[in-house]
């Protein structure tokens, strides 16, 4: 019996040690279609590599934007700069609260923002977070936060890609990589925004659906909110505009709104500004530049009003 247990433990150690070089060789040399569970995409969609390369140059900013692709496609850092706000956009594709927490743990301290605008899109609360975790593993440094993220997501693809990423980091295989500013229709703008060539959405019918939230995403969301509040940083939660056909297909938006309001100041811009599904959107849930201009202008208006109110309060005191 003891022999079985000791041999089993020895074999587990042996297999684990072999797994790492096998995985590295497989990840490096097998064709992509033959490695479904290693998905290392450096410089992938959304310019995350450029964003994280640039982030080190930013300190003591006014506003930090967080959230999914809606963030890096909806908060134009140039518009905010024109209005006197120094901002950084830390959005990433399909970013769920689990990844937001990782990014904040790494960069909140150095960015030291006065305000965090966290874009909350209901669908991201129901995602498993795998896609976004792969994006961050491939385009950022890997540390203990990455491991924590992988454990929370608990998906073999994330584990494998993380191990592969760790080895690549160790061997410095990404040191010569550089990401072009323009990729397809996307152009990276300094500060993390991605501008897309102007396109117009053709609305299609949507099936009615319900918003549902995964427990572990909501738990991470609470942790993110707490992390920000612990540093006495102001937090604004924003539901960025999506097309009306898409927005109306959710049957329980009020439920989502009520949850968000519990956490902080919350603005659902689908109820604040009226946009046209064709004129202001690139697809069913991403604004085009026309829509971004209107949305950002309104948001800045709100921020300025808020700022004025705060000043008045201080003056009265």
């Amino acid at each position: 019996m003891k022999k079985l247990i000791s041999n089993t433990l020895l074999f587990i150690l042996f297999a684990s040690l072999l797994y790492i070089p096998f995985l590295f060789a497989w990840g490096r040399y097998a064709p992509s279609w033959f490695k479904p569970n290693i998905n290392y995409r450096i410089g992938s969609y959304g310019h995350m590599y450029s964003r994280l390369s640039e982030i080190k140059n930013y300190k003591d900013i006014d506003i930090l934007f967080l959230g999914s692709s809606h963030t890096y496609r909806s908060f134009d850092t140039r518009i905010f700069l024109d209005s006197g706000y120094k901002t950084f956009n830390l959005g990433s594709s399909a970013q769920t609260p689990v990844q937001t927490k990782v990014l904040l743990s790494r960069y909140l301290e150095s960015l030291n923002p006065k305000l965090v605008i966290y874009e909350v899109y209901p669908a991201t609360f129901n995602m498993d977070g795998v896609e976004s975790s792969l994006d961050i593993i491939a385009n950022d440094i890997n540390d203990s936060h990455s491991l924590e993220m992988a454990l929370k997501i608990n998906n073999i693809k994330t584990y494998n890609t993380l191990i592969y990423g760790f080895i690549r980091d160790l061997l410095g295989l990404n040191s010569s990589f550089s990401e072009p500013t323009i990729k397809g229709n996307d152009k990276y703008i300094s500060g993390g925004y991605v501008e897309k060539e102007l396109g117009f959405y053709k609305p299609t019918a949507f099936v009615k659906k319900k918003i549902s939230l995964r427990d572990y995403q909501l738990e991470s969301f609470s942790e993110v909110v707490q992390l920000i509040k612990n540093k006495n940083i102001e937090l604004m939660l924003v539901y960025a505009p999506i097309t009306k056909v898409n927005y109306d297909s959710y049957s329980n938006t009020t439920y989502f709104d009520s949850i968000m309001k519990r956490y902080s100041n919350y603005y659902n811009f689908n109820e604040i500004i009226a946009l046209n599904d064709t004129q202001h959107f690139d697809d069913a849930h991403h604004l085009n530049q026309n829509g971004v201009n209107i949305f950002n202008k309104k948001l800045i208006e709100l921020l300025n009003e808020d700022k004025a109110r705060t000043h008045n309060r201080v003056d009265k005191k």
Partner: protein
Amino acid sequence: MLFNSLNFAIFLPIVFILYWFATKGNLRLQNILLLVSSYFFYACWDWRFMFLLIFSTLLDYYTGIKIHEAANQRKKLFWLWLSIGINLGFLGVFKYYNFFAASFADGLSLLGFKANLGSLEIILPVGISFYTFHGLSYVIDIYKSRIKPERNFVYYSVFVSFFPLLVAGPIERAQHLLPQILKKREFDYTKAVDGLRQILWGLFKKIVIADNSAEFANTIFNNSSEYPGSTLVLGALFFTFQIYCDFSGYSDIALGTARLFGIDLLRNFAFPYFSRDIAEFWRRWHISLSSWFKDYLYIPLGGSKGGMWMKIRNTFIIFIVSGFWHGANWTFIFWGALNAIYFLPLLLTNNNRNNLEIVAKGKLLPSVKELLHMLLTFALVVFAWIFFRAENIGHAFSYISEILSASFFTMPKFNEMGTALSTLILIVIFVLIEWQGREGQYAISHIGQSWNRPLRWTFYALIIFAIGMFTHSVESPFIYFQF
């Protein structure tokens, strides 16, 4: 609790350690532990059906004793039929009521009558077909005086509920399993290692081959009208490997797990896709069910001893009932009947026991004749699986008619050709390993036994690596849980 889940990976070592360490070899304690663990395992599926399992166990335990003690044949028969009636009654209600109600209403409507018997919102209790057949074989064997009833209720309950076989078999016989439960079990290192190896191979089959094949089989079967005949053939092939690796993978894990506790379960699969005729296929596929039907249905009906018509009748009965056992759908009945049609020519010409040994025993490759026979048998099996997998008979026929159309000669199309190709490559590698290990109890039971330890362990580590590389993101339950 799925065999391929983290929960089971935690549950199994705990039970294993308690079983060998905490009980200190005390048989009574070991059996109590097995029973408690088995009920816990079952309750993880749905605790409500525990009561049904316990009732079924009590019923067969009690009727078994009553049959044995009955003073005359009439009383024996009474208790036997009481057990059979209640067991099949439960099975009928939970598994077949809606099917019979709908079929009866359809039949009446053909005669011009309108009938609505209503359908019941019933969840099929997992494993009911398996533990019912366990119990039935037990009472029938007592009635036939093949065994004596077990008076210790705990021991008998372990026979019915032993967790490795509880939800999807193998369908055990009291004559085979009960003596092992009653006997003191000593730890056997070789047996335990062999069990772990079999579990590993079962996991590979299920996770790497079955789950990846399932993705394409499901896509193609669920949208068959959108695909050309060539793709539909591939869909049938994917399903062929899905069902085999899913079920035989489950059986491997069940057998391997049982061996860790010093118990040998009945073998359920013996490389069926290397069969040279349908009779051989049925000796190698779901062996515990086939032999159950042979012993408790076919032989009591007269078997193949009577005249030609009796042979034909009995063959059709056993195959149709076997098909129907899988589920309440005409597709399963048709699948069973089709296999009877395949089987009959062999039976009537006395060629049904030509191929008893594994093909090309002791050789590297089969002869051309053997290869052709294997390919023909495999093609017949794949064709029959179309009925098994189809939503209904109409779907099966439209699927087949598209295969038989000119679109068969076009290039297959998929949305994700690369992933399909990787699954096909994995299937080829799997078939080669199965071929290499076909003379063993399972494919890797002998592979690497003569190698030195580092090399052998590297081989097993490669299997684990393949599991890590090709685990499908969507975990699918074992197909046979629904039966």
